[in-house]
């Protein structure tokens, strides 16, 4: 947790991040996500369920990628692995050059903290904390000191247009506003990857549009965004869409390698 400050320096609001900024400065840029032949098998008693059956995927820095598939397709499992919330049964996963496929729970917590910003369908804000206190949470676990935490949390809220509601609690905000706070929380620690899991699933179309706009802005300012959805309209906003079905990536509309080993 302690090295977070040195790996990803805080972003100034006015200065858009460029592609490749998430890795060490010298080129060539390291892909943000590199997964190869990832399998995930869940065992419940005698029953074995293969949720992922050999997924390979490379996502470069600054890309906006949608992972699309119906429920049961394995996209949630993939999202959990991409988010370092779970480890693959086999295969490798390199996140910003770091092999995370065999990391311990403690190291994974550190990687999540430094590298990944989550946006969840359920917002997952803590009801007892005000907006800015929710946004500062990742910085607490990163060991950032109190005064710069508040500064950065307020800057992040300002960026998502919530600068005038920093003291509001989640219960006092609309769904769209809550999701904006969640986006601010996802970007506050300047992660290499923003992982949005059905971010519009609980929102009306207006709010959904706003949140997608926000993600597009983040992409425009150079961030890597991975969007998980079952909704083709939502997936359309991404520059690249991968379709998942039965634990495999079906096709890939870009030049990125998908399932090349098969």
């Amino acid at each position: 947790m302690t090295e977070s400050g040195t790996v990803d320096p805080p972003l100034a609001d006015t200065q858009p991040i460029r592609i490749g900024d998430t890795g060490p400065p010298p080129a060539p840029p390291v892909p943000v996500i590199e997964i190869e032949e990832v399998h995930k098998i869940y065992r419940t008693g005698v029953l074995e369920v293969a949720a992922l059956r050999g997924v390979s995927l490379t996502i470069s820095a600054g890309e906006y990628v949608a992972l699309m598939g119906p429920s049961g397709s394995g996209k949630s499992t993939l999202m959990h692995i991409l988010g370092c919330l779970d480890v693959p049964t086999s295969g490798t996963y390199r996140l910003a050059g770091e092999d995370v496929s065999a990391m311990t729970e403690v190291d994974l917590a550190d990687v999540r903290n430094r590298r990944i910003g989550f946006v969840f369908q359920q917002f997952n804000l803590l009801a007892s904390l005000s907006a800015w206190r929710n946004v500062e949470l990742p910085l607490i676990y990163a060991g950032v000191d109190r005064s710069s935490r508040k500064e950065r949390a307020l800057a992040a809220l300002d960026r998502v247009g919530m600068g005038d509601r920093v003291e509001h609690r989640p219960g006092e905000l609309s769904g769209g506003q809550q999701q904006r706070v969640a986006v601010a929380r996802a970007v506050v620690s300047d992660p290499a990857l923003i992982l949005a899991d059905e971010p519009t699933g609980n929102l009306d179309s207006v709010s959904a549009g706003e949140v997608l706009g926000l993600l597009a802005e983040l992409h425009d300012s150079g961030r890597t965004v991975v969007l998980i959805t079952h909704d083709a309209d939502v997936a359309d906003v991404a520059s690249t869409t991968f379709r998942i079905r039965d634990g495999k990536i079906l096709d890939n509309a870009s030049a990125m390698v998908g399932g090349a080993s098969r």
Partner: protein
Amino acid sequence: MNLVETFRTGMEAVVSHRLRSSLTVLGIMIGITAVILTVGLGEGAQQQVGSEISSLGANLLIVSPGSSTSSTGIRGGLGSASTLTVANANVLANKTVAPDIAGVAPVVSASESLTAGTANWTTTLVGSNPSWMSVRGRTMAEGRFISGHDVQTHAAVVVLAPTTASELFGARDPVGQTVDVAGTPMSVIGVLTAEGSSSTSNDDDQAIIPITTAATRIIGGTSRNDLSSIYIEATSSQTLSAAYQEADNALLSLHGITTATNADFTITSQQSLLATATSVDKTLTVLLAGIAGISLLVGGIGVMNIMLVSVTERIREIGLRKALGATPRVIRRQFLVEASVLGLVGGMLGALLGLVVAIVLPHLISDPIAISAAAIAGSIVIAIAIGVAFGVYPASRAARLAPIDALRSE
């Protein structure tokens, strides 16, 4: 995440669940109050016993006559024989025989009726010598005590204990007045300071006259030189056992007894009697503290219950915190801090309530309550320990939750 942050997070969780937290705190509080009060009651009783030891004369030995066996073979009770004499007492008072004995007060006592004008009062009449006052650790409220001259001249003088004085004379000053003791008029020369009643006898209700006066004017006859007991004061509490040995040896040889088991007298110390009383009090304290400990245990289980509920209720929060980078250790600490804060607050409130009750309760019951700083500090430490001990299991359960499972839960 440093400890300050962990503590802050834990505190926030306690504060944001006010009702639940206060119910848990209540459980601990009652337990701690019970512990503090029972320990305080026990200590109070022991202190009371301790002050009784010193009020009775800490260095006091009492020699009682042995039992007698009648011609029909029936053995009388302790003190029924008349084996102690004034001559015995005089030998014990001899410094070369017993260097560790500071004072000897031979005592004859009888229940007698005292009359002053129309007032009549039956009390314990004690015949003794001037040493009685220092040996029994008494002081004079007014007037003087019996002098050596009074003893030599068989003077018709009496010293009254305060209850006896007020029963006979009411508010009037008794000194200089005359009291009729078993038909003999005696002048009151002094009144003793009040002592408070001991567990054995009421020391504030008696009348003391010179032992010679008692022998010749009150008792008379063949038994007039027989003593009810001899009070012996050792030079200090350290020499008490030496004084005991000296008195024992002297009396054995005076009575011509070669085997100690055949002794026709018994020597007891007030301390040995009170040590028994103290140990009884201690047993009671331990018993009460045990009951209080059980209530603390119940309080602790309450903390565990609340913490488990808290873990279940906050699965999503735990999952989110883990997703945002909290390690299992950080989560575990957060819950431990919560539990120990509940324990600490409960402990402090319990100590406070205990103090208040300790101040109020002695006004309602007669028993004193002694609350020591150590008892308060100890009980607060116990309360925190309970919080931590019963928080460990819920905390490690929270820490073990997988972030995805936790986030999925509704």
